[in-house]
Every structure is written in structure tokens, then in C-alpha cells.
């Protein structure tokens, strides 16, 4: 039994769903952001696996772009957490219902 691209895709899918579970279940925004990082990295793994299967480095450039977007997303997400925490000493995602109306 050899390891081909489908093994990597299955691994990527499992990791993605662990990330989804983290975002849905955890109410700590920091851990939710980490779960989002997990999902982005699972997508990156799939891209790298496909790039290797086709011997085409466009996938690598796309992963580079995703890493940049992930860095921007983490920075802005953490900035929002800090801004919310500064106004109210609480960062439970369920309590932050100002936009809920």
C-alpha cells in the first residue's frame, strides 16, 4: 500500500473537520482563531499534495498567498479580541452580542 495524493487529502479533510469542530464548540475566541488556523493549514496541505501530484508549483504560490492571508487574519482577529477585551473585561464569543441587535 503506497502513499499517494488521496492519503494526503484524507488527512487534510480530517484536520479540517477538527478545525470546524473547534470553531463551533469552543467559546474562547483565541482557541476559535487557532481552530481557524488549523482549517487554513488543512487546505494548505491539500494544495501542496495536489501540487506534488501534478508537479506544478502554482499550488505552492497559492499556499504562499494563503499563509499571508492567514497572518493577516490572525493579526486582525487578535486585534478585535484585544479591542473587545479593553472595553469589557470578558471575551466570551457568546457574550459579545452588540451586533446582534
Amino acid at each position, binding site marked *: 500500500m503506497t502513499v499517494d495524493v488521496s492519503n*494526503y487529502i484524507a488527512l487534510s479533510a480530517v484536520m479540517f473537520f477538527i478545525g470546524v469542530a473547534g470553531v463551533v464548540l469552543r467559546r474562547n475566541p*483565541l*482557541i476559535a482563531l487557532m481552530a481557524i488556523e488549523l482549517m487554513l493549514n488543512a487546505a494548505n496541505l491539500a494544495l501542496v499534495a495536489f501540487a506534488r501530484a501534478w508537479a506544478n508549483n502554482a499550488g505552492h504560490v497559492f499556499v504562499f498567498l494563503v499563509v*499571508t492571508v492567514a497572518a493577516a487574519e490572525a*493579526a486582525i482577529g487578535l486585534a478585535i479580541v484585544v479591542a473587545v477585551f479593553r472595553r469589557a473585561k*470578558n471575551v466570551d464569543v457568546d*457574550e459579545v452580542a452588540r451586533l446582534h441587535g
Partner: protein
Amino acid sequence: MIAFYALGLVLIASAIFTITQRSPVYSVVGLLVNFITLAALYFTLNAEFLGVIQLVVYSGAILMLFVFVIALLSSGIGPFSEGPNRLPRILAPALLAVVIAFGFLAFGVLHAPLGPPASAARTASVGTVGSANVFGSVGDFGTALFTTQLLPFEITAFVLMVAVVGVVTIAGDASPSPTLGHHVRRKRGKEREPIVKAGR
């Protein structure tokens, strides 16, 4: 093959560890193990440059950002508030969604080729890992990045610019300082209502 299964096991275990920990600091440690394992998986896929990027940018920069924010928020303040566990309520739909998604995935893997057809396989052009200008090396990646993929590279710069401006706008220092426009900012800040609903 053994490397793939060992790394995959560590990858999944560390991901589960990340989302199940009570304290975000432990989650960061789990995420660190996850990212390092992922970098190793990239090396098994000939993506040398991306493996290094994974180590430097993710394990170095992004996780450091998380650690700083955790240190900033949890100093002298109680733990994050706790609520009822949401798992029982969403377990059935979540399992259904996972089964459907993996069903589609298995169908796709079994019925459509994920890789190129054997006639078009260019695995021979991948070359030996470690030598210059083979698939996934820094030379190969850089050549693509600055020639055929120049537009995505420029968009990357723009995304980072947006992130920097956004972070300064959202979490910028609101304390009085002799900078331009700080009076305007102070006045606006007084009219703001609290973001958190009281009494919940």
C-alpha cells in the same frame, strides 16, 4: 510510507489536543506541534521552501502573536467565562455533516483521478530533493513567484498592507498622545456604547 502515517498520527493528535484544552496556552503548544509536523509533511511532498515558510512564519511569527495576546489578556484577570457545553445539542447534525462530507470525498477519490493520468505524469521532472532548481526548491519557487505568478505576489503585499492598517485602526492606542487627530478620536470614543450586553 511509515513517515507519512507517523506524521499523520501526530498531526491529528495535536489538532485534537489544540481544540480540547481548557487553557489557550496549552492550545498554542498543540498548535506548535501541529505546524512543525505539517512542515515535515511538506518536506515529504518536495515542498522545501514551503516547509521552511511553515516553520518560520507560522511557528515563529503567528504563534508568537497568539502567545503575546494570551499573555496580554490573562494577566491579573480571571479565566474566560464558562457556559453550557454545546456538544450535545449539535452532535447529531455535526456527525451527519461529517458523514456526508466524507461520503463525497470517498466518492471523489474512488471515481475521479486526483493526480494526473499516467501518460501525463511528470514525476520524473521532480528531480532529487536538495539539488538546485528542482520542483519545490527555492529556485523553482522563486522563479515562478517573480515571473508567471507575479500578480498573486503583488496582491500578497496589498493584503499585508490592509492587515497593518486594520490592526492599527482596531487596536490602536487610544490613550492621550500628542499625535494628529487625537482629540477627534477621544470625542468619538466617549460616544461609544459598550460592546458587551450587560446582565447576560
